[in-house]
């Protein structure tokens, strides 16, 4: 009988459900319990891609947070090989996310465990294992150039350009 490999508490260094669903192209039952999602089997392809991942996607940054600030915090988990700021596709200004690449997988996992969900520039940031940066991914994919999440946000967020942009346009009309 194979011993169970489950830890007695969940692990924080697993890819998020977002990364998983994006790669799997399979919809989860959203009613499911968060904790259980991690235990379901994923396609081997996805697991393979992230098995040695050294890159993290970092989200919920303020538009005003600089590379230097990201560097100061994230280098606490290891030397940073490359840092790519996410930019507005049209304006080429920071739009609230970035990719941090470490030299080792270990450092990337530690970052998930120790830095994800803590604050940078007084905002709780989100980290996710990423298969690696490729040209083009530094740009926002939203209609107006930024991140999709900032298009229809109805909460006012001064760190991310106020109200959602599409929403703001709709309001103006």
């Amino acid at each position, binding site marked *: *009988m194979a011993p169970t490999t*489950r830890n*007695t508490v969940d692990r924080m260094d697993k890819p998020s459900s977002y990364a998983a669903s994006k790669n799997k192209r399979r919809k989860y039952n959203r009613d499911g*319990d968060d904790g259980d999602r991690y235990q379901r089997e994923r396609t081997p392809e996805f697991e393979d891609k992230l098995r040695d991942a050294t890159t993290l996607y970092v989200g919920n940054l303020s538009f005003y947070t600089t590379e*230097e600030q990201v560097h100061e915090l994230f280098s606490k988990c290891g030397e940073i090989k490359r840092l790519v700021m996410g930019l507005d596709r049209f304006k080429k200004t920071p739009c609230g996310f970035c990719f941090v690449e470490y030299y080792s997988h270990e450092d990337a996992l*530690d970052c998930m465990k*120790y*830095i994800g969900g803590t604050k940078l520039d007084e905002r709780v940031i989100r980290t996710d294992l990423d298969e690696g940066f490729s040209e083009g991914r530094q740009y926002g994919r939203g209609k107006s150039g930024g991140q999709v999440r900032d298009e229809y946000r109805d909460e006012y967020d001064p760190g991310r350009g106020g109200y959602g942009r599409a929403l703001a346009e709709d309001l103006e009309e």
Partner: protein
Amino acid sequence: MSDYRRNGKRKRSREPRDRYLPVPRQLRENLLSIADSPLAVPAKQAQEIATLLGDNFHDEQIKNEFFDLLVRLILEQPFKIPFAAAVILYGNDSKPEITTEALNRAGERLQEAFNAGHWRDVKLLVRFLACLQRLFEGDGVIPLLDKLFDCAVDLQSANENDVVGLELVKIILLTLPYAMGYAETSIVPQALELLEKTEIVASMKLPIEELLESYTGSTDEKPVHYLSVIGLLQLQMRNEEAHGWEFAILPPFPKFISQQVDGQDAMVTTPTLHPFPSLDIVSPVNAGPNPLFPEAYFSLYADQEVETVPKTDDIAASLIRDTIVDTINILDFNRDAVATLLVNMDSYWHPETFIKRGMPFDKIRLGEVEEGKSTWKPEDMVLDGIFSQIFTLPNPERKIVYYHSVITETCKKAPGAVAPSLGRAIRFLFRNLDVMDLELVSRFLDWFAHHLSNFDYRWKWQEWVEDLVRSDLHPKKAFIIAAIDKEIRLSFGKRIKKTIDEEFRYLITEGKEKEVPDFKYADDRTPYAAEGALLQVQIRKKAPDAEIQETINVIHVKAADAGIKDVLIPSTDAFVTCICFIGSVSFSHLISIVDRCKERLLAIGQQSEPARRQIIASIVAYWKDQPGNAINIIDKLLNYTILTPISVIQWALADHLGAGEALAESWTYEMVAKTVAKVTNRVRQIVAARLQEGLTQEQIESIDETLIKEREGMRSYFKFIDDAASVVALGTNDAYIEKVTNGELNAENAAVIKAWGKRWQVVFQRKAHVEETVVGEQAVDARVKLLPTKMETDLKEETQNGNGAMEGLTIEEIE
């Protein structure tokens, strides 16, 4: 605090106990949550689990899953070991097979852990067995402890600096309390016999321990004396004798819980006894994967006027600390779960162990606590444990930032209770800064700034206002300056200015608020202003190299006319200052310019060492108000080999040293420490490459050659630092003597500078010593000998791996 949304996770609501759940899940959930609630009666819970397990014992799958989980729980949540044992204790009453199975599982796992040298796992599994002492035939766990001691003796006689033996003795001393506390028939004579044997080992002090002290300076200045963990344990056990071996903090498990069967108490039966699991112990033991160092006991709250944590001579101090620290280090993959366990920590000990959670310190201080009751604050106990890791020398098990995050989570879970205790910790640390080991000061600094960045930068700066009048050289003032700098790095000048009190704001100068520092060549009065300004335009416009060279030639001619010997120095200053200025937009801008100018930058150092150091000088000068940026740039230039480690060290500790004032600057320390870390990491990587299995003779020779070269380099850097620091410590450097003689340095500051020299010395002597134990000839030889000799046929395949690893190493270095 409301902006922390628990990562978007919903808290699982606790449903009523009687809801329908499949048996395996019931068993899992009940075992995992045992004793979590302060309202629960763990003995009852344990018994319920035992009953449910017993009723389903015929189901192989249920049985398997349960025991897998049991072992996992022992290894991952040490707080719950006594409770896990209680399940077995009660299970044994009705179904002795439960015990048999538990012992088999634990025994197997223990054997594995022992073979692999996983000493913590050994400790925890043996603890579980010790809690079952009353179920064993004969002396139970005692013969195993005797064997462990024999192993320790073997190690000690083979090597007087051995630390693995100390680890074994630690396991013995941490096991005895559980065995004695839960024993049915007294094992006091056996325990005393063991304690007599451990005495010598526990009272030894290894030479390296001198370098592992948290506080330096003369003894009367130290807030706490050095206490070795095993020395302390030995003493605490001796003291426990006076308390009649009570071990009062262990959670009690009444032998029989009154069970009403048909209105009558259940029959009291004698438990079935079992043989202690047999273990194959081969000496000398496997030392384990990680180098071990003697452990010091660090506390911020112990032995003070108000007893908010056990006194250091009380066995409770070690038992609780050990469990807290293990929990933290084991569960690093879920800091949220760690914080929950820590906040609940008091539930896992005897109910009388701690005072109510969140009891204000002042109430305890003023004696408003019921006479004879415990005054130990669970929050203090927890924070003491976390800080003990941040302040572990040479290094704790996990990255320091992990412990930061545990403090943050704990604060988020119980802000009202934890924050005041944290404030007292900070005060204690700040009060004793002057004599604290410098590396630890730097960890305190990092934590402090990072912690505040998670809590709106709130701190009562007013408390430190009196230290503002001190000289910048004073450790306390230096700390304040550095703390504000670190806060700015995580945020920005204007923001931090708003969070500090008026009196402190002058420390955030105009320069610190500027995003783009001034470009000195924009000022006509700067020498070579015209050339510098032109150079800037040329680099920005990606002018051809010949044009840039032309401008540089002009500087060279002018400099030669002005009688400057090394004309490369002013031209390097101009070139590098321009790069910094153009690259001030962002770090990636800087990197792309450096990429473009790489050849020229590399050539500078190849032509002249002083010019190479000028690169550093120019970067630091440009970023003088934001030294963090300078440090990052220098770090990158080391990767490009534009700078060399020795150039950074020489710049910091010779060019920049002055009369020794530089040693008081936190950023100078950071720069040197970071550079040294880069070197030591590289040497460790080479050693790791050497220790791969199946290398060819050719590869071995090539790696050995690199290793010898790099190791010698490393030693020479340590030597340089030690010499430079020792000159400051002795007050024999020229600039120092001059400044003392002409009165520029008053007696107080002169003494402070000397102390800085000493503090630097201790840190880097320790680092040098630690590296020797990992990458020194002796250490490497010993580990090479342990490599299995491979069969010829396997070599081919392995060869490629070996190559890959070496390549990887070189690539990383160049990048």
